[in-house]
């Protein structure tokens, strides 16, 4: 998959202030009954960065991403993309691409039809469907029903859907799940290429060794609260890995 990344062409940088934060999360709180899933969370993302959104299972990562993407409403605080609530964006598919952990597709529909339906709704030309299918190397499997796909193929189909609108921000929830080593390598190269265009990536993960090789910024949360955030190289002192920092912060160090 490595060759094609260089053939993708260049992305036109978004108009307007390039230094404005792409994502602004302020005092974001989400309560489900007794459970505080996200607790007064604040962070922001800037263009051209790849931010690892790290935390143990159940830390509130997926809930935060759902709040950011307008799938759930915060109890308090706000999560903005490009200065607006996601649900108020005029053309969200062309600004934000997202792959949620569940790799959402109908098992009885072909990969191509899954993408075509989304492209129709977003008014994206059908040629772009074939482009993203080639990009994630699903061209030959595209007319097969999704139920015949491996987990890795479903992940790549999800990524293809996220890339349909050639977005400026990519939000990925545990994207390495189900990918084989070559797929993980390809994804890392892809995300670096993506960010070099001045675009922004937010990627949640609990796979720290992989994250450390991919991201340049991190936001670490546990029990819905932010434990640390900043540049990866400033958080990890020499001789100290991201894993050491993470386990120290989350109390998982033995």
């Amino acid at each position, binding site marked *: 998959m490595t060759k094609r990344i260089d053939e993708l062409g260049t992305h036109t940088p978004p108009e307007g202030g390039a230094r404005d934060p792409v994502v602004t999360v302020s005092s974001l709180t989400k309560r489900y009954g007794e459970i505080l899933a996200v607790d007064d969370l604040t962070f922001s993302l800037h263009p051209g960065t790849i931010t690892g959104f790290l935390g143990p299972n159940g830390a509130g990562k997926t809930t935060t991403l*759902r709040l950011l*993407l*307008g*799938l*759930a*409403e915060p109890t308090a605080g706000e999560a903005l993309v490009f200065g607006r609530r*996601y*649900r*108020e*964006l005029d053309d*969200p*598919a062309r600004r*934000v691409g*997202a792959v*949620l952990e*569940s*790799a*959402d*597709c*109908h*098992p*009885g*529909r*072909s990969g191509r*039809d*899954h993408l*075509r*339906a*989304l492209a*129709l*709704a*977003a*008014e994206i030309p059908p040629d772009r469907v074939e482009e993203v299918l080639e990009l994630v190397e699903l061209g030959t499997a595209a007319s097969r029903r999704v139920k015949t796909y491996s987990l890795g193929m479903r992940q790549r189909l999800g990524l293809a*859907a996220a890339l349909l609108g050639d977005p400026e921000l990519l939000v990925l929830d545990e994207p390495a799940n189900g990918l084989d080593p070559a797929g993980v390598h390809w994804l890392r190269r892809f995300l670096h290429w993506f960010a070099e265009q001045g675009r922004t990536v937010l990627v949640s993960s609990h796979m720290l060794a992989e994250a450390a090789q991919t991201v340049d910024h991190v936001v670490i949360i546990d029990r819905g609260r932010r434990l640390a955030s900043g540049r990866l190289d400033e958080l990890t002192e020499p001789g100290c890995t991201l894993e050491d920092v993470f386990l120290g912060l989350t109390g998982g160090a033995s």
Partner: protein
Amino acid sequence: MKAVLSAELLKQRSTRTLPGVFAAMLGLVLLAVLLHTLGLPARDLSTSSLQLMVLGRGEFLAALFSAILGALSITAEIRHGTIRPTFLVTPRRGRVVAAKVSVSVLIGAGFGLVAGAVAAAAGTAALRARGIEMQIVGGDYVLLVAGAAAAAALWAVIGVGVSALVRHQVPTLIGICAWLLFVEGLVAGDVGGLGSVRRFLPGSAAAAISGQDPGTLLAPAIGLALLALYAAAAALAGSIAISRRDVG
């Protein structure tokens, strides 16, 4: 809106759900009509009202299966999680519901036309083959088929609305089936002294549109207006509910 509509049409065309539900409906229509027309004693098929009731099985089954298909257009998206990419691309969720309503109306009308026509044709052929004189005339046939189309289209909308409210597939489908197959029948059987309200219920309003049981049910036009009100209320409530609630 046109974009969301064409996306919904493609979703319907690109799985086997639509042909599967259609085939099940058609099979049951033939089974129900032929069992009644060939199985009942001739004296139970001799009047216009009795013949309308048997041929009206087309309308009933079209309404039931259209409601199921309308409901599946939302519950299948929730079950498989495709509701998330759908709402990411179209965050104004009311537009998604409106598109699903429009497509369901179209499919429901088609289901109703086919089921109504097949029931009328098969039922008439079977009765004639038994030498039973047809008491229903040309205008009754028009009402049977057109009424089935209207009733099924509106029940498809009720299916969309109820599924947007309930969201989970199994309770939605059980609810629709239980209502049409059982609850309205209980009321019709005057359980709890409710017999007089039966004609105002949505299943009976649907039957009224195709001209069935004129002594008991509402006039076709009144039934149509009433069922349209039910459908509009269900679609509106479902649209508001799904726009406000979090997507799991």
